[in-house]
């Protein structure tokens, strides 16, 4: 399985290069879009399959997600999110819309009613670009059961209760593992600063 790495894998763009591809996509650059597609579309498909979509349905949603990336690229702000996080949110929102027929309520970042953040906050001073790298490191240090709970939560469109029932764990245990995982990631982001 690991012997046949595709050529697109070898050319996987680094996170900052991904951000640049997305910015270029916003300017109408189809080659940049193709670069994003080759990297992210197979991963979005993997996410959808883990969430329970049959492969053919996943292929259709992947097309929808990537065309939404093209259409909405102008809204991307690299100071707020990495390309990977932004594409994750597009995939999540399309999934909610297409499979559940619900809206996704979100803040409007330009809403004058938004309470401003305190500019002196240490965590917000952390460069956005560093957050992804530190998160990757921090995830590697999580105890296995916390990492599993986190991955199951992100990729299965199920409530904690379903996950608890399926894994045979009490709901309280699942919730506390998740709380511990998030707390630990947050502490590590602060310490690394």
């Amino acid at each position, binding site marked *: 399985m690991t012997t046949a790495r595709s050529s697109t894998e070898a050319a996987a763009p680094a996170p900052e290069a991904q951000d640049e591809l997305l910015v270029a996509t916003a300017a109408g650059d189809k080659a940049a879009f193709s670069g994003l597609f080759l990297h992210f*579309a197979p991963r979005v*498909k993997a996410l959808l399959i883990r969430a329970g979509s049959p492969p053919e349905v996943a292929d259709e949603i992947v097309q929808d997600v990537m065309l939404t990336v093209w259409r909405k690229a102008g809204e991307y702000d690299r100071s707020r999110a990495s390309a990977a996080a932004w594409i994750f949110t597009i995939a999540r929102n399309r999934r909610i819309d297409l499979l559940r027929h619900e809206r996704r309520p*979100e*803040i409007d970042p330009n809403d004058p009613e938004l309470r401003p953040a305190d500019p002196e906050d240490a*965590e917000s001073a952390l460069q956005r670009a560093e957050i992804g790298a530190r998160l990757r490191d921090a995830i590697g240090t999580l105890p296995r059961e916390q990492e599993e709970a986190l991955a199951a939560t992100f990729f299965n469109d199920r409530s904690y209760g379903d996950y608890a029932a399926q894994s045979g764990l009490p709901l309280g245990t699942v919730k506390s593992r998740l709380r511990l995982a998030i707390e630990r990631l947050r502490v590590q982001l602060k310490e690394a600063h």
Partner: protein
Amino acid sequence: MTLPRHHPPETLLLEYATGVLREAQALAVATHLAYCPDCRRQAALLDELGGVLLEALPPEPLPPHALATAVAQLDEAAARSLVHVPDPGNTRECPLGGLVVPEPLRGYLARLPHSSAWVGISDGVLALHMALGRAPVVAEILKMAPGSALPVHRHSDQELILTLQGEFSEEAGPHSAQGGCYGVGDLGEFEGGSTHTVVAGKDGCVCYRVLAGPVERLGSD
């Protein structure tokens, strides 16, 4: 302008980030985010975590022409995004009068049908039904007169209350956690099975409330 003191628990923010939270509950969390820069930062961090986990997934092969199919549709997709769709929202007078609330709740209120009306649910308490989610979920705006109270009740499932104006105090029943005071932007999560009362402050309050399951009134005197 004070910042919120009552925040969604970590696990609720996580459910919002992963998308598993249903629309009515997600609306309470998202509108709290507009009031709360701390939780906003936390939510952005969880989105980044989603991005990191997406990156780490082993790629699934796509059909051979997947990229070509997408590229062939790009011009049409771009043209479609330029078509201006007028927001039908602003045609309705805000049901909260002069009270301006942040997005996304503001848009939801603007899209409420003209037929929706305030209904008295107990002494001094009016409710505006939001028609979000399927029964038994109830999503509504509550307008509570100064000092008015929701009768002591026990809910079978989670209750979320987001304060939009004024404040309320929540008094725990014998089987739930300690009570507290909830001002503008505060989000209270009360778990299923808990028994409590909600009393409006001296200036009354306006809240968005979601009940995930039926409510049982206790002591109807």
